[in-house]
């Protein structure tokens, strides 16, 4: 599961949450400027609520990215080009050779977005 936090740059918010919850959080992307930081984190699905609460207690605002990757069903031709480039194995062929997507595995690396010859995939930043 992906969550996005906004927090003041000075505070080691992520470290404090990891220590407090004991959950192995992965930092996927961090944009930090002079006043604040916006960070996208990968959190195991079963720990998501707990971790989100811990961040809120530290004063960070949290939004859960329900759909990290979006597919336009009209554009997708089920060619499968996305399958072999995905590091998280989000894409797989079903029995009828349509491409199925397990978006809970997506870490938003964006490789599939450019690998798709029909522009059917989009990483959700909001």
């Amino acid at each position: 599961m992906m969550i996005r936090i906004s927090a003041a740059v000075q505070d080691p918010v992520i470290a404090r949450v990891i220590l407090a919850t004991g959950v192995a959080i992965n930092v996927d992307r961090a944009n930090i400027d002079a006043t604040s930081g916006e960070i996208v984190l990968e959190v195991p699905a079963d720990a998501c609520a707990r971790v989100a609460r811990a961040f809120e207690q530290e004063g960070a605002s949290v939004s859960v990215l329900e759909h990290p990757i979006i597919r336009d069903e009209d554009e997708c031709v089920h060619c499968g080009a996305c399958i072999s480039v995905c590091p998280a194995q989000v894409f797989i062929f079903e029995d009828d050779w349509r491409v199925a997507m397990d978006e809970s595995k997506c870490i938003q690396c964006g490789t599939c977005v450019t690998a798709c010859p029909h522009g059917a995939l989009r990483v959700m930043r909001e």
Partner: protein
Amino acid sequence: MAAKTVSEINEKIKDGSALVLTAEEMTDYMREHSAEQAVREVDVVTTGTFGAMCSSGVFLNFGHPDPPIRMQRVYLNDVEAYTSLAAVDAYLGATQVSESDESYGGGHVIEDLIAGREIDLHAESSGTDCYPRRMLDTRVAIDDLNQAVMLNPRNAYQRYAAATNSARRVFYTYMGTLLPEFGNVTYSGSGVLSPISNDPNFRTIGIGTRIFIGGGQGYVIGNGTQHDPDNGFGTLMTCGNLKNMSARYVRGALFHKYGISMYVGIGVPIPILNEDIAIAAGVSDAEITTEILDYGVPRRTHPVVREVTYEELRSGIVDIDGKEVRTSPLSSFYLAREIANELKRWIVDGEFVLSAPAERLPVRGTTKPMREVREQLLVQDAMSECVRTIHSHAGIKQAAELIIKGNFNHLPVLSEDGTLIGIVTSWDVSKAVARGDGSTVKNVMTKNVITSTPDEFIEIAARKMEKHKISALPVIDSNRKVIGMVTSGDLNKLLVRR
């Protein structure tokens, strides 16, 4: 040997009694039945494929405006088409890129036309007495055109090589995104459903064979360009009326950092006229082989990594030197199957009759490379053979002294047995000295050295340096011994002179 004719089969199609199988169904059928039974029972086998077909395009006639123009340059949605064909005829190629949007091109314009969308047309001319107009801007949709004919020089490859990449960086190719160091394998073609793979001796597919193309009916008009039946790489030249096509089966495509292409859906019916044809149409994925080529070596003939069957490719994993590498197709098997089934439905419903070809396609023949009249330079023509090197246990101070004395910037680092294991630059050494680092060269060297070989083309060496943002490549032999150094300066001198 049992034999039928196309006319007999067409009679059965017209009275609704033809038995039609897709090529997948035929493969199963031939496991349970003899060829003789097949000739008696099965009338037509349908094939299908939906993949990138770069050598495709459309002939368009726009009609004459008033005052009239003889187009000398024409752009459709900012994509240039070729118009040196009389006054208002043009050919739009699938891979032409837009002047203003590098993610849009010929294939997308063709898809937009088929989908009924309006296209901006801009044309220019220097003008003549009979065609005085010099500039034209208008909008057209497909119904405004007199003719819109798809004519594709090369489609429906019998089979295609699979691609992988041994290089250190991602390669962006017409076979998609290839991850470094054999990170993935991509492949193209519909295997068991592939038209020519089901009739590799061109017993039924010939000039005038009626086919499914782009959602409408069209024809094979000859062998495609680069037709290479001797090596199992036959191709088709196809045509069809764009006005009868569907945007579900003709789609513009963009291969990241490669360019524009167009996916075309093609289905070829195979009349089961005799036992040889029945046996050929029973081919399975396990029997269709191809090669995994290393696109990381950008030569006309890529190194062959290994042979592979379409069955292995479609399993999702292939073994390369003990490593399990994931595969993915670029063609859609799902749509290939849909096309084979749609063609089957047309035939069963009596909407499509078969045509016997006017002439067979060549069963023999191969394809030639381009003739070149100028010699291409190799790294050995540019490199310097006097190369200073240093051992990994040497001190940084010693590296600094060598660099200053020799007045160069790149110092290859060798192991005990004299093979290349790293490289230090004058920058690395300056940084270490500034930090007061008194340790060995091993601690500051770059370990993943990008190298060249004496027989590499200088174009490829130049591109390696550009893509890795470096200015020199150690030149090594097959034992990883350093035999030279080539710098961007050396290459610039040679490339400019040409």
